[in-house]
């Protein structure tokens, strides 16, 4: 097992810039996720580590080995890097059986036939494909093919596993199951995992640490899933991690008003650190807003109500903007807090995140 380090890596395709200066360290034995919108350069990063692409500038290390260096003109070919890779489209070889797929890396390493067979069988066991070794890929389901790809990547005991959106071609149920299994595999084998996805749920579910990348290839925040979700570094991270409301506000006399109005946000705690400034944008999740019929809170009018089963989803007009609010159904029913369209209600905000006023444009990046 090994750590992976990208140091000052830049990548250009002709004049097209992916990023200029990427610095990331994946620690030995952790599951590290690179999370970002599509087209931000995540896949390029996987390919740089695997050795399918060469950096335009900067260095890539796997363990203590410098595998790519633009300045020193070093480029270790992919086959010498001891990585395992799983692609979005599985890339299971269609002319080989599941077993032949999995045993291939060992054959290439000239591992003795019996031992290779035993290891391949064990790898198939690990991904719950026991007994399906003789099937050709077209006889396997999408999930099973993805497991073959996983077993094939694991069988040669790589120092690092690179997973490039491996679950996005699977249906929702299978995706949930597989992400649990990947986590289990990583725990059991202790392999370093570099996982790339645009799906924040998967990232939160399986990672030890997550890095958030924006469309310009810049890393906005690196941290544990908790930190990323609870203490977003900026509005972009906050927005990317889930449904969000952004409200421009101003501070007057220690009270928070929707910008340019006299409509106040009631019972909002203003953090000490923020009191010096006047203009903010506050962010909050739809589930961090309480609704009530009477009482304290800011008035709003329900524009749309959709019943989604365990939650009720509202769009509420407040201070001239639309606010998304989600309530859990049982609580709302028991306390008679279900609002229909056109009704007036009171909004109370918890857990506001305070951002610079310029952050909205940035968040839309």
């Amino acid at each position: 097992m090994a750590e992976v380090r990208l140091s000052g890596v830049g990548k250009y395709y002709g004049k097209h810039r992916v990023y200029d200066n990427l610095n990331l360290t994946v620690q030995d034995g952790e599951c590290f996720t690179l999370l970002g919108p599509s087209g931000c350069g995540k896949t390029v990063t996987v390919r740089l580590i695997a050795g399918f692409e060469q950096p335009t500038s900067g260095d890539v290390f796997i363990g203590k080995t410098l595998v790519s260096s633009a300045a020193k003109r070093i480029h270790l070919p992919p086959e010498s890097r001891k990585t395992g890779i799983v692609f979005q489209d599985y890339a299971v070889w269609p002319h080989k059986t599941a077993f032949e797929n999995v045993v291939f890396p060992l054959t290439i390493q000239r591992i003795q036939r019996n031992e290779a067979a035993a290891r391949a069988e064990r790898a198939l066991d690990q991904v719950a494909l026991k007994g399906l070794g003789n099937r050709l890929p077209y006889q396997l389901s999408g999930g099973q093919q993805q497991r073959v790809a996983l077993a094939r990547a694991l069988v040669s005991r790589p120092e690092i596993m690179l997973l490039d959106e491996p679950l996005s071609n699977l249906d929702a149920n299978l995706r949930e199951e597989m992400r649990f299994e990947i986590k289990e595999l990583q725990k059991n084998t202790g392999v370093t995992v570099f996982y790339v996805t645009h799906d924040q749920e998967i990232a939160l579910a399986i990672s030890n640490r997550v890095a958030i990348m924006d469309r310009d290839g810049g890393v906005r925040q690196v941290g544990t899933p908790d930190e990323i979700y609870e203490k977003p570094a900026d509005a972009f991270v906050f927005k990317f991690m889930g449904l969000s409301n952004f409200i421009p506000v101003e501070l007057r006399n220690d009270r928070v008003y929707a910008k340019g109005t006299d409509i106040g946000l009631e019972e909002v705690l203003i953090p000490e650190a923020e009191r010096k400034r006047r203009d903010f944008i506050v962010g909050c999740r739809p589930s961090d807003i309480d609704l009530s019929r009477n009482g304290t809170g800011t008035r709003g009018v329900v524009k749309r109500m959709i019943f989604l089963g365990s939650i009720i989803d509202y769009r509420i007009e407040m201070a001239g903007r639309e606010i998304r609010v989600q309530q859990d159904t049982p609580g709302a029913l028991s306390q008679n807090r279900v609002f229909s369209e056109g009704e007036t209600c009171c909004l109370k905000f918890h857990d506001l995140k305070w951002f610079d006023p310029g952050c909205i444009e940035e968040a839309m990046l």
Partner: protein
Amino acid sequence: MTIDIKKWGVAEIVLVLSILILVVVVAIPVFMIFWNSFVVDGHFNLNDVVKVLGQPDTYEALKNSVIIALGVTFFSTVIGVFFAWLVSRTDLPFKEGMKLLFVVPFMLPSFIGALAWKMLLSPRSGLINKLLMNLLGLEESIFNIYGFWGIIAVETMYLFPFVFIQVSGALERMDPTLEESARISGAGLFTITRKITIPLVMPSILAGALLVALYSLAHFGVPAILGTQVGIYNIPTKIYEKIHQSAGSFMAIRTGTVLASILVVSAGVILYVQNLVLKSGRFQIIAGKSVRPMLLKLRGLRVPLLILSLVYIFVTVILPTGTIFLVGMLKTYGVSITPDHMTLKNFKYILFTWKMTKDAIWNSVYLSLSAAFVTMLAGVMISYVVVKMKVKGKWFLEFLGVLPFSVPGTVIALGVILMWSGKFGVNIYNTAWIIFVAYIARYMAFSLKSNSAALEQVHDSLVEAARACGASHWQAMRSIVLPLIRPGMVAAFFLIFLPALRELTTSVLLYGPTTRTIGVAIYTLNEDGETVYAAALSSIALIIIVIGHLVIRRITRSRLEGAQ
């Protein structure tokens, strides 16, 4: 430009090798043709070109080529579209079988067809003409296959599948909801056909028609057999006549190259237009899923239209093929076809005794086998560079790769004559080698098409997965890429081997005393009046071709099953 030696990896070497093959095999011969037509004594000279074109016989040849091509294209399009619609959009019985039968003319060599029709409809000795004269007590024959109408009719029989295949494919792939939504908005079937269906398949119709035009324009066999006798020459037969009669005189070669240049340019234009048309149609037909299209109920016309189709197939396929076999068994040409005039001795004679035909069969077999093998391998390499490799300078290879598609057989033959008769220090004129290089040039397009299609199916990640597993470039190539494209390679091999086996257009300009091919032998036997032997040799060619097509069908079918 300085070349950094360190930068020269495998990729660059393979690229240069690929470029070299295409340059030597195709680009230089074509260039030589243009050079010969436009450059005199080292100077660009257009006056002479105009003078050549102004000569009555070259002008005549151009005109005839255009007339024939227009006629063939028109009739092929009408017949092709009609039958395509019949088998894909109506409830005609036995549609699947009919669909196969309509494609059969594709695999039959058209010059053998022309030969058969000569036997059936020549004014004096044609079997049908004689039969009708006897039956009706006429003094003069009714039909005369020699001339424009004969040429157009016979070419149409063998070229209409181009349109048929394109259009029936498009009609089947077309999203039926496009028509259904028109129907829901109140349009009748006639309106739907006119306003929705025809505009949607128009690109396919045009693409097929242009292919027919391209083939007809550059076609040698049929006009050579049915036209030259009555003084009708098209471009390829005129080139043949010039080269053949003049024994290499400068003026004759110039006339040839000027005509060949015109062929290359018009082929290029036709292919370019076809490409545009196909591109414009690509987004309209969408739906890759084969959903059941709305079928027109033929009701009372069902049986009559089935009979019409069967009669068409009988007349265009079975009648001429049968005639070839029967005439091939006659003791002498001209006697009536009755059992006591039949013998198998002709076959025995040409297969085992006569050196000329034995040589021809042997020449054709080894030339087409070796050309198919070499062209297939070269095609794999070139397509691999174009489809899979990231290497600087690839655009030049891509540009060269288009060339083989637009160079007709006559042009290739003329080009290799100019290039390989000593001008560059190599003289292989009159040897089998010159036919070999010409075949490679002529069939490179097939190889590139088949192999690049196969390679495009092999997703990059399959190779990258192998690399990440520790496989080197070559190991990944050997254990992943080659097994996956093997069906495409085999298909390419047969796609070259079968047409090369019966090739006439190119070989007829290149053969020497000992290097006749089957096609040339049949053609010269016919010229020499040895009609029976020509028919017998044609029968043998047909048998080999049919067996070959059965093999290719088996291979492509197992490939489909594997890909499910």
